């Protein structure tokens, strides 16, 4: 009888799912998500949609920061480019939604390529500042290129239409978002089983060594930026269709910081981590808000007090995670799972 995970081939080593249980789990999760709109209220669907968007965005950022080690605080800018490109392609160019969204993601990739160029010469903090420039250039452009973006007055986005079916309710948008979250997750998961993904990891661990081994830093660093911003573009395009209103204020530097916090709390360099982080960071303010709302009956000031504690709780969460579990929620999950695997005969 086998009493552990003995792998006898590289193929077995590379497997995503060790046993049947996780496969069943993932399938069950997908099925559960598919029927959710039947039960969930608009409010929770809205939250789920934002989680879905955050997952795609966080996956993209994790490819770049967590796996390739290229620090970027320009993610909000890439989201903005994706969102505005989708909206402009649909409103001004009259493209149908199913062409506009991928095209916008490609445009965002182009942006990522351009703003990734400094990464060829810069590392760490210096690269972070270079991507900060990307953020400010982009937001400045959005605010001031009024003929295209309508500046600070914001842009209205018509509902997406697929085969004549308008995606005008949260439930329909939910299906669209999750139809993209699933492949995006599987693509990212598989990416790191390929040559490209391995090259990213090699660059993160030591770029000089990677270069010596024959990894073309030039290609792969830029490719990481392109892939990451493709994800961001996709997330941005979905944001445009989710809120149907675009304002430059929705893409502040804080959004970029939020996404960094997501992958740090979730787990750097982990697909599961990006998902956990996105869920955690989106749910936390909602949970605080719900708590505040239900407390107003008892203590009327609670609403105001708790609303302003959001940032404190976020800050505290990031500090605690960095101190006690730098590998984030993903690591905690693995440990909890490991514990239950052997329960009750753990020794």
């Amino acid at each position, binding site marked *: 009888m086998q009493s552990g995970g003995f792998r006898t081939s590289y193929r077995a080593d590379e497997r995503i799912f060790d046993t049947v249980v996780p496969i069943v789990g993932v399938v069950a999760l997908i099925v559960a998500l598919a029927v959710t709109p039947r039960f969930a209220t608009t409010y929770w669907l809205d939250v789920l949609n934002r989680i879905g968007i955050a997952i795609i965005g966080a996956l993209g950022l994790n490819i770049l920061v967590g796996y390739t080690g290229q620090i970027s605080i320009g993610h909000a800018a890439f989201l903005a480019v994706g969102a505005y490109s989708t909206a402009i392609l649909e409103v001004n160019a009259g493209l149908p939604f199913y062409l506009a969204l991928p095209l916008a993601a490609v445009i965002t990739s182009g942006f990522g390529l351009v703003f990734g160029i400094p990464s060829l010469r810069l590392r760490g903090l210096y690269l972070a500042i270079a991507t900060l420039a990307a953020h400010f250039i982009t937001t400045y452009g959005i605010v001031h290129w009024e003929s295209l973006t309508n500046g600070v007055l914001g842009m209205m986005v018509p509902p997406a239409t697929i085969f004549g079916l308008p995606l005008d309710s949260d439930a329909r948008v939910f299906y669209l978002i999750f139809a993209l979250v699933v492949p995006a997750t599987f693509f990212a998961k598989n990416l790191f089983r390929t040559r490209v993904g391995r090259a990213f990891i090699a660059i993160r661990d030591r770029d000089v060594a990677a270069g010596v081994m024959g990894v073309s830093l030039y290609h792969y660093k830029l490719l990481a930026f392109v892939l990451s911003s493709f994800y961001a573009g996709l997330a941005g395009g979905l944001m445009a269709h989710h809120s149907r209103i675009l304002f430059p204020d929705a893409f502040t530097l804080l959004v970029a910081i939020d996404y960094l916090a997501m992958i740090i709390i979730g787990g750097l360099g982990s697909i599961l981590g990006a998902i956990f982080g996105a869920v955690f960071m989106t749910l936390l303010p909602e949970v605080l808000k719900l*708590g505040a709302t239900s407390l107003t009956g008892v203590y009327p000031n609670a609403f105001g007090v708790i609303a302003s504690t959001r940032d404190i709780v976020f800050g505290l969460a990031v500090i605690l995670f960095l101190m006690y579990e730098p590998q984030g929620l993903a690591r905690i999950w693995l440990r909890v799972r490991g514990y239950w695997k052997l329960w009750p005969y753990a020794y």
Partner: protein
Amino acid sequence: MSHARDLLVRFVLVGLFVVGLGAPPGGAQGVIKIGNLVDLTGPTSDQGKDIAQGRIDAVQYFNERGGVNGRKIELISVEYGFQPPRAVAAYKRFVEDDKVVMVLGYGTPDTEALRPYITKDKIPYLSGSYSGHLTDPRQTPYNFPGGIDYTSQIRIFLNYVKETWTDTSRKPRVAFIYADNAYGRAPIEAGRLYAKEIGVDLVDEEIIPTVLTDATSQLLTMKKKDPDYAYINTNTQWVPVVLKDSYKLGLKTKYVVNNYGIDERTPKLAAEAAEGVMGIQDVAYWGENVPGMKTLMDYHQKHHPGDTHASPYMRGWLWVIMSVEAIKRAGDNPTGESIKKGLESFKDFDTWGITPPFSYTNEDHRPTNRARLVMVKGGKIVQMKEVSVERDMKWIGK
């Protein structure tokens, strides 16, 4: 590391606890639900904190007196940080999940963005935004600005400049300084047209960021154009930045600030730079001698002794007083449509004296054409005179 596991367990427990608290109190039959959207953390939190408190206190006041038509009012409060997409999410929740009968809205960017939804859903939307774009019932039948509209305010300013101008050798020169968002920009186009119409020279427009830390460069540009008067359209917490920088640079321009940019806090915030600055006052200040103030202050003192507020707190009360009256007029089964009719039946409605009497009709959603001019004198804000502007249908919806 049992440490981390402990932490996790605690996290989960706290999470469950909070989620449990968050479960909606079920079976509240007969409660009238009103959506309450406020900004407590964003760039307009100087208004939002007091507005939220005012609304909550006022609702509690009416509930303690038996509610409206025998039913209690429940406020569904959402904080949105002045982020329009978050306001849209909150609005959807109000309408689809909570089934509110009306919404107490907030800022201009979000209220203007929500216009098509509001019209489609027939939800009376009483907003803190006084944007002129919300005043035309032919376009926005369910939007009700909760005070004198920004367009009327900028017309009051231009009229004031015109009337007080004595130099016959040239026309008065004015400038507009406004925040770079839909709120700041709302009355500007109308202001340009009206200035031209009455013969006031608009020589400069300076756009300032929503969150303002320094206005030196804008003011240096403005200094070259040398306007006699400048109209500032931003929030109370950012106006002092303009005033202080202007004081530092020694500008001679006289400032007039719109209703959300000046109140009893301004003399303290801008100190000597505030001297001589004028403003438009839409609601009574904290503790001012108006008919309803005693009731309001007594109630406030009873529940939050030792706490003080500024005029936004009055706005919170004002909008609840108006909502309660509209729902009362709508009868036993208030719907969006009947509450709209209730609001539109306001004719010289007495808002406890917090504002001039309010009137809405099904042709004009500008509640009033009257306001007061105030001025900072000797570190205090003092009232100069009552002002009004003609209710000209030409400017409706502009």
